[in-house]
């Protein structure tokens, strides 16, 4: 029985609901495993034409579960561990292959985003074919602040080199209309219209022939592959290893050490406070 994912099939649409609302749908090993199961159910099912992914509760997902509990597939191993380079590489391959598989699912995917959509949560939303967000959605990837490589190649192809560097270096959060402007998502709607908009889109697409949709999607993804996306996944795996094996400077902010000593909340504060001047909420000129 799945606990962190709810999978429902209704009128040719497969609904995958991230279901850890008490943890803001933070992504851990269990959720990824159950997500695999839901996708494995949806993909070959001829009665499912479109897959929609959304989050239960207040938001889509705040990203990787940073508690470190049950997250061996989600976060790199603790520093000073004894894992060989080979094992680290295998772990990265597994992680990125899962993302690639979701990107290449033989059915169209729609991400329905409300509230926070960060880190690995944002990666999931980006991998879906079409992303619809409510006005209250917030997007960002603060991984670099925690010494983690953001590891999602699709950034470069979606928003370009300048915005990729800006967003991933700063880890700043942006609102839905900025996300739409830079090419990260397709459309922004008022919060009370989100469900209706996604339903309308999913139903409309579900009327197309399934074969046609599969080939149409494969054709577009093949173009992305020809543009280098395939190589980028493998390159990303390699750079993950470089990041995981780098030397830590004395005095450098160590997110995970701070979490272990002072708790997750304190660690998050220390991570984010220095960057408040770049927050989405501030008035833009």
């Amino acid at each position, binding site marked *: 029985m799945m606990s962190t994912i709810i999978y429902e099939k209704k009128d040719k649409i497969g609904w995958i609901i991230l279901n850890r609302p008490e943890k803001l749908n933070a992504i851990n090993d269990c959720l990824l495993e159950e997500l695999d199961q839901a996708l494995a159910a949806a993909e070959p099912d001829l009665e499912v034409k479109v897959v929609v992914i959304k989050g239960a509760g207040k938001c889509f997902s705040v990203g990787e579960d940073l508690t470190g509990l049950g997250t061996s597939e989600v976060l790199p191993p603790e520093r000073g561990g004894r894992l060989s380079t080979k094992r680290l590489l295998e772990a990265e391959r597994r992680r990125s292959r899962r993302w690639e598989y979701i990107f290449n699912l033989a059915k169209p995917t729609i991400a329905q985003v409300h509230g926070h959509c960060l880190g690995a949560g944002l990666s999931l939303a980006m991998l879906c074919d079409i992303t619809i967000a409510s006005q209250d959605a917030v997007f960002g990837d603060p991984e670099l602040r925690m010494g983690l490589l*953001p590891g999602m190649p699709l950034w470069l192809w979606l928003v370009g080199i*300048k915005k*990729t560097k800006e967003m991933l*270096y700063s880890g700043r959060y942006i609102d839905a209309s900025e996300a739409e402007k830079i090419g990260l998502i397709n459309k922004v709607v008022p919060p009370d219209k989100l469900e209706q908009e996604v339903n309308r889109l999913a139903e409309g697409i579900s009327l197309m022939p399934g074969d046609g949709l599969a080939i149409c999607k494969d054709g577009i993804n093949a173009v992305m592959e020809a*543009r280098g996306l395939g190589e980028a996944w493998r*390159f990303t795996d390699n*750079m993950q290893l470089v990041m995981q094996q*780098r030397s830590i400077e004395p005095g450098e902010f160590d997110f995970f050490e701070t979490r272990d000593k002072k708790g997750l909340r304190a660690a998050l504060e220390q991570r984010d406070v*220095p960057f408040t001047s770049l927050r989405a909420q501030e008035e833009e000129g």
Partner: protein
Amino acid sequence: MPTGFGWEFKTQYQRCQWEAMEYKDREYAHALYEKDGEIARITLNRPEKRNAFSDRMFNDMLAGLHQANDDPEVRVVIIRGAGPCFSAGHELSSPYQEESPPVDPRYNPTLVDYYGFERRRCNKHEDLLHYPKPTIAQVHGYCIGAGEAVAASCDLTIAAEDSQFGIRGFGRFTNGIANLLLWPAGSNKAYAGRVLPEVSGKEAAQMGAINKAVPQDKLEEEVNKWAEALSRLAPEALTITKEWINGMLDITGAGAAWRSHYGAHIMLQYVRFHPSEVSLYKTRRDKGLKGFFVDRAISATPGEKPAA
């Protein structure tokens, strides 16, 4: 058989150009180097020439990058221009021995000369792109040609809203979609940049070609805000992330596309102007370089004809 240049002319491009540029006991003049805690500022400093790139300015800029890289305290490098603008591009009336002006046909360069010469010119920008610390271009006023290439090669480009990228009659040397400033924003916009090359800072930000445009009196503050934010990150983590993103850019073809860049530069050395066009060679001879630019700009405007 040596030509007007010969091999001793600065054709060698195998070394990273900022790494090979000495800064110890250097008298920075055409570009200045200042260190402010964790932030280094390189200021292009030929305001009377609108910061046109002479060899000395390039070399001072490269030396500044070298110095900043060697200094373990420096975490972010800002490149900006003194005076009215960021940079108007290569200094075209430098002495012929310099790299900045195009090779004068009088000196009978061979294709081999051009290769060395143009690869060196274009490699500067590639070397800046791959610089291991984060770089921010602070742009105001004109940002043309080589100036645009420098701004594009920095990680972040923050400009004044009324700054101007490109100028009528000049266009862009990097081609449509390899143009880093516009990569990979929709290619319609990239070609717009060929036909009507003037793009304001505000428009460039809207296109996603630069990161942000702000009123000019807020420019310094905005750039400092970003520099301070970036200086809080673990330097090695940032270097690795930059290497990753740049690596992916290479994978998308931008790495090989630099060959298109310098290939186009070489191609341009051989253009012949049609009788109906304003010829660089003839007009420069008759009216000087300035006269050429004036005529060229007029001729590139529909409905206008330059004075005889």
